[in-house]
């Protein structure tokens, strides 16, 4: 068995092993910096741990006295499975593992040790087939070239085209394939070889399935979409709720869309509530549609004249979370548990149809009209129903997406309210995490100008408030079709305009 093809085969497996080894290291490093942030730190600790683990592996190889070939096959299979699945495992377990670092470094250690075993074992397998100087020269040549290849492939091909999860499955498959090849070349054809071949094929199938299902795995693990660590993730029947936190910044994402950042949500919510409500010193009853986070309610309760707030949010999971999670309750000042507040979990359209109460002010804080189902909540049909629960002289305010990014969408909301018989006062504000954001204040009759802001605001004062109602030329009114159930013009504007920018809110 000292023929040329066998040697070549074994040497080329050095090449593959080296590529795989480096890819796992890069995957772990990249993942760690994705998930834990601070990439220089993460990368260097990952590389350090990985290299020392390889050292441990090489050292351990000294304890192997015989059966190098069999052990080599086993190691290949193990590296293939552990390394191949590592990225998927890390992604999936991130939001759930009690200590993610233990898991991360545990995996890195394991893969490192196994990879460290490979080259010494291979050297020993090949030692009778080559002269020592040739052996060392060739093995290390292939090793280094493999590493070079990996370092080029990784940023240029693997990350952009396959993604981390799929790449690591792919290299797992290569490792197992090397194991099978070795089995074929060095195997004795006995029972052990046969059963190991079976195992190898099963592993190939498993990794192949992982490769094929990578998209689903990624969709499952939020982490792929978030740059900050996920501290809470749950699916309600209506949406995927994810909270992330980094350096004191708490963010809520619904179905992957940012709802607020605790750093600047006060700007958004003060601007949502006060420019309208502060002009109704005698308002008592307020309706909030959407806004299950209780942040708009927090602002409403700053007005002493308010006696009763009804909050209608579709998702019980949302209102439960914002009543029970400590950080969130701190953020909304426990507004949802205020004796003045009634929380109703229902869909706004049918709730309005059945509602008999009248309100002095209404705050409509729905998700952006990014699909046809949500677009129905911004139609003339909806505003007509809303109009029926407003007391004479009352007003409502609608969050209306960004007049900067989606200028036509914003003015379409305004136009729709006008088509439903409202007079409107559109305005906008700058929220750093969102960008320029818009609202439309609407009422049946013009509302008095007198503004009485409550104390304790961090952002709004009379001057700021006045400036918000002025639109510079690049955000100014454009003609649009009112949004109706039977034309969904808003969703069409919104899609067209938001698709031009890469980052969605």
């Amino acid at each position, binding site marked *: 068995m000292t023929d040329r093809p066998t040697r070549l085969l074994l040497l080329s497996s050095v090449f593959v092993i080296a590529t795989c080894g480096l890819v796992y290291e890069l995957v772990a490093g990249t993942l760690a910096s994705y998930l834990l942030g601070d990439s220089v730190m993460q990368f260097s600790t990952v590389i350090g741990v990985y290299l020392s683990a390889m050292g441990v592996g090489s050292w351990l190889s000294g304890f192997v006295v015989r059966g190098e070939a069999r052990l080599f096959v086993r190691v290949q299979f193990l590296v293939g499975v552990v390394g191949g699945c590592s990225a998927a495992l890390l992604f999936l377990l991130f939001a759930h593992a009690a200590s993610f670092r233990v898991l991360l470094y545990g995996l890195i250690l394991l893969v490192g040790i196994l990879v460290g075993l490979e080259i010494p074992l291979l050297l020993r397998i090949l030692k009778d087939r080559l002269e020592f100087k040739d052996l060392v020269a060739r093995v290390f040549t292939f090793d280094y070239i493999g590493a070079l290849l990996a370092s080029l492939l990784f940023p240029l091909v693997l990350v952009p085209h396959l993604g981390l999860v799929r790449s690591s499955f792919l290299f797992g498959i290569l490792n197992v394939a090397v194991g099978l090849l070795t089995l074929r070349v060095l195997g004795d054809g006995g029972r052990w070889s046969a059963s190991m071949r079976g195992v190898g094929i099963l592993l190939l199938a498993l990794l192949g399935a992982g490769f094929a299902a990578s998209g689903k795995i990624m969709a499952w693990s939020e982490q792929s979409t978030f740059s900050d660590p996920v501290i809470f993730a749950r699916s309600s029947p209506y*949406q995927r709720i994810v909270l992330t936190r980094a350096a004191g910044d708490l963010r809520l994402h619904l179905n992957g869309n940012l709802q607020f950042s605790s750093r600047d949500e006060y700007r958004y919510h003060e601007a949502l509530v006060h420019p309208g409500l502060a002009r109704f010193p005698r308002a008592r009853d307020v309706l909030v549609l959407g806004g299950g986070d209780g942040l708009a309610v927090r602002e409403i309760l700053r007005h002493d004249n308010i006696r009763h707030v009804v909050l209608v949010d*579709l998702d019980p999971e949302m209102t439960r979370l914002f009543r029970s999670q400590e950080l969130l309750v701190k953020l909304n000042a426990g507004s949802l548990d205020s004796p003045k507040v009634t929380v109703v979990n229902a869909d706004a*359209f049918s709730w309005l149809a059945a509602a008999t109460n009248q309100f002095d002010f209404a705050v409509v804080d729905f998700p952006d009209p990014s699909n046809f189902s*949500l677009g129905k909540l911004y139609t003339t049909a909806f505003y007509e129903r809303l109009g029926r629960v407003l007391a004479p002289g009352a007003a409502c305010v609608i969050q209306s997406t960004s007049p900067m990014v989606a200028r036509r969408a914003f003015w379409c909301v305004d136009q729709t309210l006008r088509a439903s018989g409202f007079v409107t006062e559109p305005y906008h504000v700058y929220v750093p995490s969102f960008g320029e954001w818009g609202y439309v204040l609407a009422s049946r009759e013009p509302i008095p100008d007198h503004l009485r802001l409550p104390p304790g605001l961090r952002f709004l004062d009379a001057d700021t408030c006045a400036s918000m109602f002025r639109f510079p030329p690049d955000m100014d009114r454009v003609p649009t079709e009112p949004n*109706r*159930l*039977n034309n969904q013009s808003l969703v069409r504007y919104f899609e067209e305009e938001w698709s031009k920018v890469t980052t969605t809110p």
Partner: protein
Amino acid sequence: MNTRRRTFLKAGIAAAAGLGGSAFGVRAGGSFTGGMVGVDSALGHRFRDGGFPEPTSSEATEILVVGGGISGLAAARELDRLGLRDWKLLELEPEAGGNAASGRNAVSEFPWGAHYVPLPGHDTPEVTGLFEELGIIVRRDARGLPVYREEFLCHDPQERLFVDGRWQEGLVPQFGIGAAERSAIAAFLARMEELRGARGNDGKPAFAVPVDRSSRDPALLALDRETFAAWLTREGFTSTALRWYADYCCRDDFGAGMDRVSAWAGLHYFASRRGEAANAPGHSVVTWPSGNGWLAGRLREGAGGRCSGRAAVFRVVPADGGVEAWVWHADRGASVRHRAKAVVLAVPQFVAARMIGPEEAAGPRAGGVYAPWMVANLTLRSMPLGRGAPPAWDNVMRDSRSLGYVVATHQSLHPVPRATVLTYYQPLDEIPPAEARRAAAERGWESWCAQILADLRPAHPGIADLVERIDVRVWGHGMACPVPGWIWDGRRERLARPHGRVHFAHSDLGGMSLFEEALVQGTRAARDVAAQLAGKAGA
């Protein structure tokens, strides 16, 4: 309705589970339930074969309406409006509705047949009147244009077409066709637009709804003697994409393709609608989760307790200056002689023929062509995914013999899409109607399900995993088919004339199976009855 519950195990998935697929997290045991739904066929066969016993008792009302489709319900409504409240409506099925029947389950209501009405224009005050009464039209704006209740207008997006592996918006083909095809389609549509405004030499619109309000200009009526396909060829409309579209429209409205329906009927489809609304384009439609079942329901409410279901009328004979209907009441297990001063037969003409006598059963009344249909309602855990344009109300697949499906939850106002019901339509027009009826009667539920899922798979690869139940209904005589001659050879007018005290009202007398025809025919028959009874009283 009788539903046979069965379980259909998807062989592929079951096998995978058997091989330990579940160990790998593959969803095991993908199964769904459902069955054949529909007319009590035993009752139908007994009607055809004359197997009902002679009446043993008798009842009397002033007027009898036989058949509870839209035409029968419309006749009953009009009688009430004319102050004739002493009537009874007899319907074969447990509930009135006919081709506008609907069903419901935990997920949604859904149609079994008719599912929409185009916005009416000036030609059909009967329809606008009803729409005002039912709150579909809420008011008129300053220009006098009707304002429709927005929830009832078909929500956007209305239509999409699956072609070359992806969904496009709208039904007029756009993808994968060249400039020549595109301009052929544009030319055709421009021609139809022109015909929509055209008038005949008698000053009436060339094509109107109802059919009888169209012009009698001989040059136009001549179009009823050739097929629509022949007309298209003659006019140089040879583009494949255009002909697909024209054929689809014919099959959708008449249950038969452009090579079977008359050119007049085909053109009528494109050129008869002049709807108008203040808050929607004129070509919009109104629809509900239950389709026209909503309209049938509202009309039933108006009828109160005067409708009898499971009542098979099997003979209608003149008696003592009035009429007598022999009725098998399945619930009582007995036949009853219903006497009345007049009767409205709101049933298809071939059914009416069997009721009124052997000479009619062999005559022209029995000679219409009726297209058989298969309709299935698929209850799904969620909307199936597909490439391209998002789900619309009407979803058509170009390379399919079906007409695609309508989404029952499309009109839902709930902001998060959830489980849904799809109503899948297929005219059984590949073989002649009689053969198709026979083949369909023998076909089992499993076979229909397999065919439906195979048809939907290219557009929705994952659909089989989402199915919770499939119910299938076959309409043996779904709709009167306007083959050349049927509309304008004079037969319809003759068949519509009353036989003494027996009046006829069914959409097939209008020449086309449409809600508007049913409403107008029923209303007209009721007015004729009123006039006849008033004349008698005066004499």
